């Protein structure tokens, strides 16, 4: 067995161990910390699968932003763990559940082992059209050209989740600044990081979006980095969370899907099909759409993490 194979097996076992820890840990806080570690390990697995774009997205969104969300939740829910533990289903039910899950996992494992190699793939077709789009990264091509309708719908999903989260605010706080009330006292290290990292993060994010047309990267990854910067700044109290009634916030939220729709509808006119790109204009339009998408993702992700408003709007 070569070194690489041994490392792969080691990584897989580690991932399974941390995932098992997350499910089985008694304390919810330990479970959440385990999940964040799990996400980072998973990014390594994605790199081993030669899916670098996915690795970046998993690290930034799957582990990073989700981790912040879950940690801030578990800190507030600490008191509820004991009463919930009393509701655990009996041993018999748990054994039945375990049997069911083992059966599902076994069926999936069998399907995985029986999978033909090489399998069915759309890679050649995806590659054949990259030239006319002028794009080098096939994943960007799939996201913003071939299956752009999926991406557009997914931006709408983000907005609806945002509205859903905001709708959970108490009536009297509607329109106020998002997020929970917290004592305003920026701690030393956090305030320092919040001053140091954002300019760096913005540059890195813009680079990743720009480069995403030809290399791994793109709007989702860059937007997630910008979102992380915004979260650091808000957590360190260097800036206040925006009030949800502000027009500029709402415009930033819808900018991505709105621009996507606008270009899509324009596609009816010129190349003759919704979401089609006129010949020769594909790459600039794709970058244009990605810029607006990055803005929307950078606005939506932090607002989803900090939650509904809890203070009435300042008059």
């Amino acid at each position: 067995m070569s070194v690489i194979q041994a490392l792969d097996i080691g990584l897989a076992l580690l991932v399974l161990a941390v995932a098992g820890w997350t499910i089985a840990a008694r304390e919810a806080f330990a479970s959440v910390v385990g999940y964040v570690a799990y996400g980072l390990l998973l990014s390594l697995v994605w790199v081993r699968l030669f899916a670098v774009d996915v690795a970046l997205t998993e690290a930034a969104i799957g582990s990073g932003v989700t981790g912040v969300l879950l940690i801030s939740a578990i800190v507030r829910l600490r008191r509820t763990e004991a009463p919930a533990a009393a509701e655990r289903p009996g041993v018999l039910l748990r054994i039945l559940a375990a049997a069911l899950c083992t059966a599902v996992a076994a069926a999936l494992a069998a399907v995985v082992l029986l999978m033909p190699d090489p399998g069915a793939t759309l890679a050649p077709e995806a590659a054949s059209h990259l030239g006319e789009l002028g794009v080098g990264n096939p994943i960007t091509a799939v996201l913003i050209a071939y299956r752009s309708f999926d991406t557009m719908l997914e931006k709408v999903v983000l907005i609806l989740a945002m509205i859903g989260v905001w709708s959970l605010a108490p009536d009297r706080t509607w329109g106020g600044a998002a997020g929970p009330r917290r004592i305003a006292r920026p701690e030393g290290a956090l305030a320092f990081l919040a001053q140091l990292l954002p300019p760096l993060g913005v540059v890195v994010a813009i680079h990743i979006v720009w480069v995403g047309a030809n290399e791994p990267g793109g709007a989702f990854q860059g937007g997630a980095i910008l979102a992380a910067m915004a979260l650091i700044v808000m957590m360190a109290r260097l800036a206040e969370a925006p009030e949800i009634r502000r027009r500029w916030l709402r415009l930033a939220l819808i900018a991505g899907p709105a621009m996507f729709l606008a270009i899509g509808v324009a596609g009816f006119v010129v190349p003759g099909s919704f979401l089609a790109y006129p010949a020769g204009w594909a790459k600039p339009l794709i970058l244009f759409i990605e810029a607006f998408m990055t803005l929307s993702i950078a606005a939506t992700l932090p607002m989803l993490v900090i939650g509904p408003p809890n203070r009435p709007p300042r008059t």
Partner: protein
Amino acid sequence: MLAMALALATTGGGYLLVLAIIVPVIGMLLSLVVGGRHAERIALALMPAGLGLSLAIAIEVWVTGQPLVYVLGGWTPPLGIALRADGFSAVMLVTAALVITAAGYFARVNFQTPPELPEKRAPLAFWTLLQGLWAALTVVFLGGDLFNLFVALELLTFSAVPLVCLDGRPETLAAALRYLLFALFGSVLYLLGTALLYGSYGTLDIALLAYRISAEPVVAPAVCVAAGLMTAGLLAKAALFPLHLWLPPAHANAPAAASAVLSALVVKASFFLIVRLWFDVMPGLASQAVTTVLATLGAAAILFGSVLALRQARLKLLVAYSTVAQIGYLFLMFPLVAGGHPWSAEAWNGGVMQTLSHAFAKAAMFLAAGLVAEQLGHDRIAELRGIGRAMPMTVFAFGLGGLSLMGLPPSGGFAAKWLLLQASVESGQWAWAVIMLAGGLLAGGYVYRVIAPALTSASVAVKAPASRSREAVALALALGAVLLGFAPLEFFDLLQIGRPVATVALQ
């Protein structure tokens, strides 16, 4: 193959499919940005447009006799995504448009922005979520790609869940969280299935998948596992017994207009996808064993849901358990349609007719129940004596809806039941006929529980006279369920457009 070429090229009226999707999306985005009382105006202003588009699609499908197809971005499947509208899609679109328009008009009183505030939480959330829900339903009915349908299902869940807890009461929050968790469980199983299908065939386009699956002599194990997982996930979202636990508290505690839309349309979307999966993507897999399992669960839902409905103390919970029961009827159509037999077309028509008439009837009943709850301040069935005198139109609407649920003539429910009974008798599967008749009796039981005290001559204290226009909306929906019973034969021809020609079951 000519059929394949037809399924992958944009047809003349295809642009209507795109418009039907983007109109509510644009409305939702605009409502969020402009905000305030304009959100309501935008939503109401776009409703006629949405209704007109759905009717235009139905007429186009009817006139051309072919499904409408639109290839998005000019990228043909398998690389790109297509939208398709067959007869079933078209009638579901029209039904959705009518029910949402009615619910929107009904809800104007409940979700008004008061003049002294620039914006209020519940109205803004309601009008944006309603438009998002409409867009999601449209994509579900028109989507031709399984992953696209996954995103549409998520869109639907995120629109529906916040509507359940819109008034902020604690019991609605628990119900909404439970609904969300069941829905996410369903989505992730569905996604797992699509992964296996892509791995096997390199595409998720429904028409292409159907072609490639049917071209294989033996069914691959991956396809069986995928079918099982996707169906389990979609059954959780459709609240079929035994995965129905989330539905009664969620639908009963939501605002009346939201309950109407949830029971009439949202659960039907998952059912629609199960039908697409089993009769369009993998008809060869729809063996006797599988369809019998689905129908048995449906039968259990009918009996269980109806008996529980008989025991409810609250009106809205009774109506919600009735939904659990009526969804069971929809699954009785599976063993009757599968196999390409002479009675399959009849069973198909019956199943679709049941879907449509239940949508109208249930929406009417929930709106009526909402009016009763508003006027009395409660919805306890024990204290409904005499409301028939105070709110005759409302009780009449409820009664007409109940007529359709029971399957009495003249109503859409009767037409549906008649077709399904005929198919069940012709195919020799008598058990389903017995179940349907039993379900009808039980439905009669729980409708009687409400109507009988309502029509007594006791006097009851109401807070204020009911708004005539809102009662009229509930009545109009109930009349819709009745009018379906008078559907001409051409209507059933519309339903048959786009059906796969041969459905031969692999044993």
